[in-house]
């Protein structure tokens, strides 16, 4: 097996450093030797840039994959969007001869090559398949005994090679339960958070995506929402505060990344996550519940 390398993306290290702190803690607790990918760039962002250009996103992803391949490393990806960008670029390079020739030429021009030897895994897959639920349960010091709801994030459904699109969402659910939490469902878990629409029409995104999701949570006893995508987490955390202005009286709910949940369950001090830098209910949740 190759070395494991964390692909942090942009949003986690620059907007949610607490998730990076949690990731490093969780992997250390699980005795998984991870290094960072040095000199990487944005994955790049899978929705808007994919529309803006056909070659650029694949070339940028291929450079990231080349960095990992040169380091003899496989990638553990901490963000749904990054996973989709990298996995789709990898698949495109494998199946589209013309694109591969074009991108290989671009890479060669900067002294790089990519031979398709990097295994790209979402951190959920890695924790579930490589580490296993039992080992995670054994690592817990303070199981998170609370009712939580899950938001999968659209890109978590992305699979290459014809695999079951519900594979990773199911793993996500089982990992939350392995952390000791009780899952409650609203029925709208699979609905998009609205983040991509926000870039086009924010009120519509809030009214037709985030609003219905948060309203549906009112029928559950959820004390927090669990995410595995920093963009979705950001959409919920910042967007919930704006729902009242649109006449949607629901929430707000604290927003917690799965790695933060696991880190806390494994004994990390809540203060180490610096949730005081987060918004609204997440901040209050940290102060009232964990401190």
């Amino acid at each position, binding site marked *: 097996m190759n070395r494991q390398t964390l692909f*942090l*993306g*942009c*949003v986690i*290290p*620059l*907007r949610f*450093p*607490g998730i*990076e*702190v949690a990731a490093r803690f969780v992997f250390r607790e699980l005795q998984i030797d991870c290094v*960072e*990918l*040095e*000199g*990487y*760039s*944005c*994955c*790049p*962002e899978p929705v*808007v*840039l994919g*529309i*803006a*250009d056909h*070659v*650029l996103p694949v*070339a*940028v992803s291929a*450079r990231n994959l080349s960095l990992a391949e040169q380091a003899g490393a496989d990638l553990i990806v901490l963000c749904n969007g990054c996973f989709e960008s990298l996995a789709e670029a990898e698949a495109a390079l494998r199946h589209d001869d013309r694109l591969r020739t074009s991108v290989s*030429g*671009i*890479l060669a*021009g*900067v*002294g*790089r090559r990519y031979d398709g030897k990097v295994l790209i895994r979402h951190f959920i897959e890695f924790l579930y398949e490589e580490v296993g639920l039992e080992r995670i349960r054994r690592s817990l010091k303070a199981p998170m005994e609370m009712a939580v709801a899950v938001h999968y994030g659209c890109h978590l459904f992305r699979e290459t090679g014809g695999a079951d699109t519900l594979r990773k969402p199911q793993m996500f659910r089982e990992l939350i339960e392995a952390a000791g939490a009780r899952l409650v469902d609203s029925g709208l878990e699979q609905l998009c958070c609205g983040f991509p629409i926000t*870039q*086009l029409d924010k009120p519509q995104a809030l009214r037709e995506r985030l609003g219905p999701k948060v309203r549906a949570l009112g029928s559950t006893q959820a004390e927090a929402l669990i995410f595995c995508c920093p963009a979705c987490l950001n959409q919920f955390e910042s967007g919930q505060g704006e729902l009242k202005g649109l006449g949607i009286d629901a929430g707000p709910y604290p927003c917690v990344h799965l790695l933060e949940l696991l880190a806390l369950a494994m004994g990390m001090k809540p203060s*180490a996550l*610096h949730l005081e*830098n987060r918004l609204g209910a997440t901040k209050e949740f940290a102060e009232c519940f964990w401190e």
Partner: protein
Amino acid sequence: MAIDPIVALLGQRLSRENLRTELDGRRLTIELEATEIVPAIAALLAAGPVRFVTLAAMDAGGDIDLLYTLEVDRRLVTLRAAIAKEASRVQSVIDLLPAAEMGEKEAAELFGIEFVGLTRQEKLILPDNWPADKPPLRQPLTGDVFPQARLPVENLLRDATSVRVAPSSLARREAAGLPKQPAIASADAQSMQEFVELVKRTGFDRRAGYDWSKRKLRYK
């Protein structure tokens, strides 16, 4: 793979290691800076017979592309240069290739390019009273990037990230006990240089109309 002799010659004369080229059978396209067109043609003429075939202009959004097509050693060679609309000025090649005069006049009239050294100003295509500041085939300056993608594109090309690398973000990292700079390309000059070169090789910066010196798109 052996380097194409024409590309090698121009690379040497222009002191360029990585000329961007496209080869399609016997047809070779070489991308040059606008200032390199005259020395490139001079270099080809000094090396052997060259026949001027045509000069075509095309509105590429942010630039006017000029495509000088030549026959060199029984091959069709196109020298392609992007003339920024903000400047719209390039050196004439008629001292080297007199037959290019018609093409330069056409590009001047229809696309508003000023060819420095093109002295005969009589109109070729347009009526004499056509206003000089309204070249009919020239569109307003724009680029390929639609409005909603402009911020992510500027972030990506400036910092190699999807979000801005703000001092407050770096301070929060430090406060959380993390290295101040994440291991992203923009934190390392060599990695960033490689990233920029990669983007340039995709041609996206040109299509998008990105100004590397101002680190933003040339249009809003």
